[in-house]
């Protein structure tokens, strides 16, 4: 459960996007986690000073190796450390898993619409992986909004998941790839009407990302007739 602080060791790290890092971490005593949950991370300085933040987990299941993806907020305290300073072999602590609501479990067979803004893909990636790993054939669709192509986490792995029952729609807000069929721009009503599983099919909707993105998407979907009880949201702040 979420009670104790557990030691975590960085075992691998890279920069999949220019402004963010992915960290693979081994957590001793990890009880396993559902797809969509997060941890509290605690960092301790030499002199005992501490800071805590929450980070979603992009992996799922019993494995004690967890993956995180952290966006740098240049004027932030913790994210620049995780993105630039921490190295393989360094340690911190985690507590969790946290959250029983923003989760998807393979026993859910209905259609699922995932909507991610930026690093909000992290818990949704765990759901996409849980679907793949369980052999579930629940229809999934992902709408993933990023600044531009280089700013997408998990791009290759997601493209490999694409298939008859797993749709992916990219939305580029600042710069679209050469020849893209839509000019860059933020999500709006028309776009969601076009890309999201229609309300009539009663999808479970999971929305995650910066707070303004989540608010905008959730309100537009309610406006389009989606039942608020089927829309689950996770806000990263900002």
């Amino acid at each position, binding site marked *: 459960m979420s009670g104790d602080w557990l030691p975590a060791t960085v075992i691998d790290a890279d920069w999949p996007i220019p402004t963010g890092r992915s960290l693979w971490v081994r957590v001793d005593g990890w009880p396993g986690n559902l797809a969509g949950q997060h941890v509290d991370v605690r*960092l301790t*300085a030499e002199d005992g000073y501490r800071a805590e933040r929450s980070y979603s987990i992009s992996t799922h299941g019993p494995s004690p190796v967890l993956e995180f993806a952290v966006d740098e907020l240049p004027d932030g305290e913790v994210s620049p450390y995780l993105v630039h300073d921490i190295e393989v072999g360094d340690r911190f602590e985690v507590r969790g898993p946290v959250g029983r609501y923003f989760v998807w479990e393979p026993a859910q067979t209905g259609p699922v619409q995932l909507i991610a803004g930026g690093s909000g893909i992290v818990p949704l990636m765990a759901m996409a992986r849980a679907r793949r790993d369980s052999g579930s054939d629940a229809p999934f669709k992902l709408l993933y909004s990023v600044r531009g192509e280089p700013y997408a986490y998990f791009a290759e792995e997601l493209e490999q998941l694409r298939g008859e029952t797993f749709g992916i729609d990219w939305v580029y807000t600042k710069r679209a790839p050469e020849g893209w069929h839509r000019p860059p721009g933020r999500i709006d009503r028309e776009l969601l009407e076009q890309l999201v599983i229609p309300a009539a099919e009663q999808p479970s909707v999971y929305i995650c990302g910066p707070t303004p993105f989540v608010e905008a998407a959730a309100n537009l979907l*309610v406006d389009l007739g989606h039942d608020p*009880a089927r*829309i689950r*949201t996770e*806000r990263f702040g900002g």
Partner: protein
Amino acid sequence: MTISEERRTMIVSRGFGERRREPDPSLPPGQRTTEDFPVMSAGPTPVVSPADWRFSIATERGTAEWGWDDLMAQPIDDVTTDIHCVTRWSKLGTRWRGVSLDHVLAAAGGTEQVSAMIDCYGDYTTNVPIADLVGGKAWLAFEFEGEPLEPEHGFPVRLIVPHLYFWKSAKWVRGLRTQAVDEPGFWEVNGYHQYGDPWREQRYW
């Protein structure tokens, strides 16, 4: 464990701490102040007009129901208080206007029960002990910083129980039901603490 023992077993993150901000003693542990008013809710924003708003008060003695005019007919308090969200932001010296839960429960003839389940438009629920609702500790609030509540912050009426983490301060309230045992509400079932005292960092169970 002594402090020096704790130091020895401490897991230190090499090179961490350069960007630290000084902790503020007026804040509960792990909280930081924000000037914004971030939004946190489990789903989208319900739309309720004051004319349609109803608040039912169900106790072991029966059920009373208030509309907007009944709420406005009550004594109204000006409240200045700090608020603390479980997602680690706090906002200091926020100003609210609302009706004390003392009046709400009195209107229903009082209660001997231990806990209340708060019901909301949008099907959110949260549980709060009666002892934390009475004695000038909780309000049905309809104004924030001199203005009606914003839709995403609970318009037309929200509960505020500022001495507990702010998820207990349910938005878009439509009623309370007293209960003989302290049954968990929505977030409490979904991983958050049954009571939620920020000074004891009761974030999760």
